């Protein structure tokens, strides 16, 4: 997105469903409940939706499946599948479609029942031919190798990785919507079962059910809705690879490029951001993205997150809902970075509501550090 689209669209509804365990429901049931929740929040109905932005884990034509299930005939759809970043990426295409008049009400939606259906990641994607013979465990082996390289190059420690999980839990403990709210210490993380060295089970995101949705309209209609508007000030993507074996530098992600362009489009810098919502599939993600988005220098992410610096009352609020590590992670988490960023700005965050948030960042990751999408959201005051 360029600055020509700055503030052209606004989020007027957010919703979610099926957090934790959605017994007896299919992934599409959870998707539909999430859509209804977001539309209800906006004071709209399904019949108002003429733009649908959706992908799911289980099908090759999920946007069509979703439209059919919802009983709508959208005139604009985007089902681009870039993994968990897709739902942040749709902020760009939804803004473009709204601005061009290709649709008037854009619904971004996702749902999954992976926890109750199988207890592990459900995916329609095939293992890459030149990786499959070595049986890497997807996606953890990829992130474990990124973490190992970061530790080797920069001296990042397992304790620092653990502190990411501890901070996420500290936020989650205040969030009644979060799935894991029990106490968690650095020692608990380090002592948990090792699953892919150097990562233990507590360095890994949850496996939950859940869905989420946001509704966007053109900014000129922003004041016609019950909740305070949240503007899309900038969003940008960059894709670097699909297979982990093709990642050029295991310690640098395409978030460096996506972040730079998103900040430029929004006309703000990292120091202006008051709440940071990152896709934390694994503890290393948070460290990589804080570095690549410019919140600290490359290699300093470990020290940046240490000893509660990103926990409540720390130096920078990161993953204020508890993140994918402690709040919810139904296969793809991207939509929840957008929802939490929007709710912090609106002032109705489910957990700790920070004071006077005008600028928040949502960052989506897809594949194996493959697709990076950064969005900057702002209140009416930031226009």
């Amino acid at each position, binding site marked *: 997105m360029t600055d020509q689209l700055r503030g052209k669209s606004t989020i007027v509804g957010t919703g979610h469903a099926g957090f934790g365990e959605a017994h007896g429901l299919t992934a599409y049931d959870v998707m539909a409940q999430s859509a209804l929740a977001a539309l209800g929040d906006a004071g709209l109905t399904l019949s108002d939706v003429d733009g649908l932005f959706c992908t799911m884990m289980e099908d090759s034509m999920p946007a069509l499946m979703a439209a059919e299930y919802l009983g709508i005939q959208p005139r604009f759809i985007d089902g681009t599948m870039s993994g968990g970043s897709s739902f942040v990426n749709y902020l760009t295409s939804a803004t473009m479609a709204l601005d061009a008049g290709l649709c008037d009400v854009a619904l971004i939606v996702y749902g999954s029942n992976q926890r109750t259906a199988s207890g592990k990641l459900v995916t329609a994607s095939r293992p890459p031919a*030149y990786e499959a013979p*070595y049986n890497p465990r997807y996606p953890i082996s990829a992130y474990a*190798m990124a973490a*190992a390289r970061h530790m*080797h190059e920069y001296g990042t420690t397992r304790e620092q990785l653990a502190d990411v999980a501890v901070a996420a839990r500290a936020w989650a403990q205040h969030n009644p919507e979060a799935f894991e709210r029990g106490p968690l210490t650095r020692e608990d993380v380090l002592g948990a079962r090792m*699953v892919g060295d150097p990562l233990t089970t507590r360095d890994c995101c949850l496996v939950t059910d859940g869905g989420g949705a946001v509704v966007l309209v053109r900014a000129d209609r922003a004041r016609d809705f019950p909740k305070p508007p949240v503007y899309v000030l900038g969003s940008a993507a960059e894709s670097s690879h699909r297979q*982990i074996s093709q990642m050029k530098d295991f310690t640098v992600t395409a978030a460096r490029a996506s972040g730079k362009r998103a900040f430029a489009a929004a006309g703000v810098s990292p120091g202006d951001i008051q709440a940071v919502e990152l896709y934390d599939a694994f503890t290393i993600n948070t460290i990589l993205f804080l570095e690549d988005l410019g919140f600290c220098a490359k290699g300093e992410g470990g020290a940046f997150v240490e000893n509660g610096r990103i926990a409540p009352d720390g130096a920078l609020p990161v993953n204020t809902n508890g993140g994918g590590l402690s709040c919810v992670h139904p296969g793809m988490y991207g939509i929840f970075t957008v929802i939490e960023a929007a709710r912090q700005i609106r002032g109705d965050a489910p957990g700790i509501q920070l004071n006077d948030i005008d600028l928040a960042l949502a960052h989506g990751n897809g594949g194996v550090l493959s697709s990076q999408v950064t969005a900057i959201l702002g209140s009416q005051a930031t226009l």
Partner: protein
Amino acid sequence: MPDATGPDQIFQRALADKEIVLPRCDDCGAFHFFPRVLCPHCHGTAISWKPASGKGRVHTTTVVRRKPERGGDYNVCMVELEEGVRMMSRVEGVAPGDVVIDMAVTAFVGEAEGAPVVLFRPAEA
């Protein structure tokens, strides 16, 4: 069977003959991996095949933890070959946890699920 013509076929058939070959671009001279019909560096389409030196270093590594009754732990790593390309593989002949970054390794053609694959062992000192 006609001669192998596609890049994947050429690579796999060489492996079946216990040879490791790597694609190299005639235009820019750089190697690439995985095999494909164009050079991902300069986008040239004239590709030649060169025998791999077999010399590499572990770029990064992990241990996939698995219950003993299901076969136990094993190594998954990225090896950077002397030719400048990286491939996913496994280092054999040492415990999975003893595979470390920068370790010098030598390639050999092994087997996984009945098919030939590139594996590595620690280089002789």
